[in-house]
């Protein structure tokens, strides 16, 4: 594509000419990066491709998902695909969903000074600080509601001056809230029944018995999202 329009971006400080109008992830692959980790669903759901960038001439850092954000001229970027934040060990059925349960497992929540840096780092535009504040007062329902769109990219925890593990706290709250305060949804009961009665056993056995080449061929032919047919 000789007439392809290119734009210059900086990946970890090195300049690359990449096509206009592609995502950061595609641009990085165009520049020669090959993702073994740090790429997953490529659809903005898995949280594997957390990325930080700065626009030319700006002082402020911006936080996005590489698979969702388009490149811009003069972007300085790097991926932060993993956050080494510790997660508390617990057995859900043994927890008492009382007001202090989140604080017992994540006491650093109490260090929140409401700076809101986490909220500004969230590529999902979640009100992260507000759910941390709800966690501080033991409001599991509010934490669960506010954090519902969290994809656990970990950028909030990477930015927090109080070293709070926001996304792990929120996950724990959602789990507690769903087992203690929410009815089990019908569709989940139906699906669990199907699984228990062996509904997908044949397909699973087929996969297990396939050789590597067969698996690779099947993977290459997989349908990720069914094309929407215009009506």
């Amino acid at each position, binding site marked *: 594509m000789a007439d392809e329009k290119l734009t210059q971006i900086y990946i970890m400080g090195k300049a690359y000419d990449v096509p206009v109008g592609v995502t950061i992830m595609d641009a990085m692959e165009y520049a020669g990066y090959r993702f073994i980790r740090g790429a997953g669903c490529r659809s903005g759901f898995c949280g594997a491709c957390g990325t930080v960038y700065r626009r030319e001439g700006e002082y402020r850092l911006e936080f996005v998902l590489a698979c969702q954000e388009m490149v811009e001229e003069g972007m300085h970027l790097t991926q932060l695909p993993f956050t080494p934040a510790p997660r508390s060990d617990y057995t859900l059925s043994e927890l008492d969903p009382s007001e202090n349960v989140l604080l017992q497992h994540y006491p650093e929540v109490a260090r929140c000074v*409401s700076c809101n840096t986490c909220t500004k780092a969230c590529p999902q535009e979640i009100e992260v600080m507000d759910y941390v504040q709800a966690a501080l007062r033991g409001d599991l329902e509010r934490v669960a509601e506010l954090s519902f769109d969290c994809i656990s990219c970990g950028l909030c925890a990477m930015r927090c001056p109080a070293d709070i593990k926001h996304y792990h706290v929120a996950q724990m709250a959602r789990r507690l809230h769903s087992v203690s305060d929410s009815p089990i949804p019908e569709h989940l009961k139906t699906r669990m029944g199907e699984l228990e009665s062996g509904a997908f056993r044949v397909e699973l056995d087929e996969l297990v018995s396939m050789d590597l080449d067969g698996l690779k061929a099947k993977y290459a032919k997989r349908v990720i999202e069914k094309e929407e047919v215009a009506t």
Partner: protein
Amino acid sequence: MGTLTYFPGCSLKDNAKRFEDAAFFVMEQLGSPLLELEKWTCCGTVYSLTSDDLMHQIAPVRNFVRAQQAGSDEIVALCAMCYNTLARTSQRINADEEERTKINAFMNKEPDYEGSVRVRHLLQVLRDNVGWATLTDKAVRSLEGLKVAAYYGCTLVRPDEVGIDDMEHPVVMADALEAVGAEPVTFPFEAECCGTYQIVDEPHLALEQSGRILRSAVRAGAHAIVTACPLCQHNLEQAVGALSEGGVEGIKNIQVVYFTELLAAALGADEGNLTPAVRDLLAACVPAEGGV
């Protein structure tokens, strides 16, 4: 007076829920319901005395911004510690344009704090806006015969610039209780420190402080010691337990309750919504059903 913009604070959603529940009832009865800020954060807990550390003023300021967004220039607090922290930050940041500019610059893309939100404690609202006569008029259950030790602690009355009453001899809570028929006792430890968060690391210190306050209230003949702070309440409750176990006479009969609980009882809260402590106290009142 209309609706009041109410800041709860974390404890009021947790171990001090009854403090808040009773306040909601009281203000509903008085025609000025409390409307909770839709979004609020921790008050900051303890006011930061460091002059160059503005980060610890952010939490209170953020609540002012949210009051401002809700169209209100006043926040009413119930918890004495929240009141203190919020009121001191409000005074400081409202008066200091340079600090306000710094904080707004830090908050960056968020709405600026304009510097006009003030903070009051519910007791101030009752005294200055509702008035004791109205409280007396609206009371349907007499607290006559009930001897109460109104306990203020530190943060409602100190430092002077945010104190809601005289820092040595405050009367505002006693006046509120007297307005609904209770009999305030005079006890010299009304504004002593309860031991605050020393209860966590040095519990003996807090229990010694709170124990002294309790013994003074008991000596004054009080049926109840009445608080406006979840931490004072907690420490005094702990001290009742510790002193009773230690065999100190008369201690186990005294109840520790929030002032809103007694006001709610006086304003006609259903028996079922009263805590056992308050029901016990009503039993100590002279029977005078049907009005004060």
